[in-house]
């Protein structure tokens, strides 16, 4: 699935990384615990999270993730968006809650990795 399809499914706003929306992702993960992401993520290209701090971007960077989705319409500050941008990571903001956002993506074929 292309990241722009993820954007559409989540009615999301693109905060940065507009130029990477054509990239393909095949699975996603939702987490607010960064150590869990570091422990269990395999090839998930997308991280859905409610956390807004630089370590979220760092974690995604270490895991080669392509896109971070901020759930529940929270607004990250400019510094965070710039940081994601500098790492060539797409940042999306969706109005949906974590549960709903994950459910919508899963329903449309973006699975998890167990």
């Amino acid at each position: 699935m292309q990241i722009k399809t993820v954007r559409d499914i989540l009615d999301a706003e693109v905060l940065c990384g507009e130029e990477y929306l054509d990239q393909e992702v095949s699975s996603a993960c939702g987490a607010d615990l960064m150590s869990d992401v570091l422990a269990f993520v395999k090839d998930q290209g997308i991280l859905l999270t409610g956390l807004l701090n630089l370590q979220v971007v760092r974690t995604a960077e270490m895991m080669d993730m392509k896109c971070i989705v901020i759930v529940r319409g929270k607004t990250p500050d400019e510094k965070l968006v710039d940081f994601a941008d500098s790492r060539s990571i797409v940042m999306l903001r969706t109005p949906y809650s974590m549960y709903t956002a994950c459910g919508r993506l899963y329903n449309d074929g973006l699975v998890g990795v167990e």
Partner: protein
Amino acid sequence: MEKIHLQYNVDGDDLTLAGEASSDVRRVLRQLGFDAETIRRAAICMYEGEINMVIHAYGGVIDVYIDPDSIEIIMADTGPGIADVEKAWQEGYTTASQTARDLGFGAGMGLPNMKRYSDFIDIETELGKGTTVKMIIKINS
């Protein structure tokens, strides 16, 4: 390829900076053309260790030695040390502060992760003196 030595000072006061060193090593490994899986293993190990140096100690020094068949990471802090290393290895054991938890850390998964993704790991620690974690990641071939 000659053995490459990289050294980083990790600032113990600024949580937002934690991960800078790991990010730089990841960049160097990519430039050197290592495979993605090796880079990811090294990045996870070092990042977990770097976060620990900041959230549990007061920062310190990281030495990284890269040669064609292995990456060695030595992380030395002058923090409080670990009282019970046996416990520290267990999944879920944590003494992380609320500040660290708010950032998404403190699941007690860091050391188990480092063990899982490295080929060798050793901790030397002394209460009141500090902790040194040494890890070796062999290159996938």
